[in-house]
């Protein structure tokens, strides 16, 4: 019972770890390159979830102060991880776009985006 309450208090962290492992499984086992990119995006999302959960305050509002003259510190969530994650999302979009362009070039060269078929074609090229 104590373990259950410990897990329930940190359920976002556990979810982030599970999402990370799911993304890593997709990257490792699927031979399709597009699915590998999808797995990479799932891993990025898990990191975003983790960092936003670090900044959360239970019962806290969004950090928009309005016309409050003297804000109470505990009543708002931490604004710093949110701002950092915005940077992270932009970097994730850039990486995804670049990976997709590389996949288009690979399809143009080999006619497939399955990794094992690409490896067979490369070994045939190398052996003769």
């Amino acid at each position, binding site marked *: 019972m104590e373990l259950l309450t410990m897990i329930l208090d940190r359920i976002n962290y556990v979810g982030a770890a599970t999402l990370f492992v799911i993304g890593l499984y997709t990257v490792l086992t699927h031979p399709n390159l597009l699915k590998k990119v999808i797995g990479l995006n799932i891993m990025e999302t898990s990191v975003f979830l983790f960092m936003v959960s670090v900044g959360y305050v239970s019962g806290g509002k*969004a950090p*928009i102060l309005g*016309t409050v003259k003297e804000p109470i510190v505990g009543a708002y969530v931490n604004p710093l991880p949110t701002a950092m994650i*915005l940077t992270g999302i932009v970097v994730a979009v850039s990486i995804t776009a670049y990976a*997709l362009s590389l996949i*288009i070039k690979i399809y*143009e060269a080999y006619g497939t985006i399955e990794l094992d078929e690409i490896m067979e074609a490369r070994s045939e090229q190398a052996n003769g």
Partner: protein
Amino acid sequence: MDDLIVKTIIRIVTPFIYLYGVYIILNASVSPGGSFAGGAIMGSALVLYTIAFGLEKAEKKVPNRIFKWQREVLLCFLFMGFVTIFMGYDVLKLREAGAYALEMGQVVKVDLLNLVNIGIAMKVAVTLISLFHVFIKEDY
């Protein structure tokens, strides 16, 4: 996609999506959202238009010279940084240098900071739409 229903609906809906994006950008410093979200909304409106009407009509809506505006965003930031340095303050210490965002309870006012908001939103929208156009130009 030659579908009359999709074309009509998107022709009706697209101005409202644009309006929503502009609202979010101009209220970036007083309300949820911000310039990144507003730019993403405007870019996705253009993506929707491209899906419905095809690449050729969409490229008339988004001429390639908009791509050059990306440079001005960086120039906005550099301009603000140099303004504060030349007035004798640290980089981007705008309040001491006299450039405010909004006064409390005031409606939207165009100043240096909203200029930066508009610039970043334009940057995000142009990035989204040009990435989409570059990708779908690669047809096989």
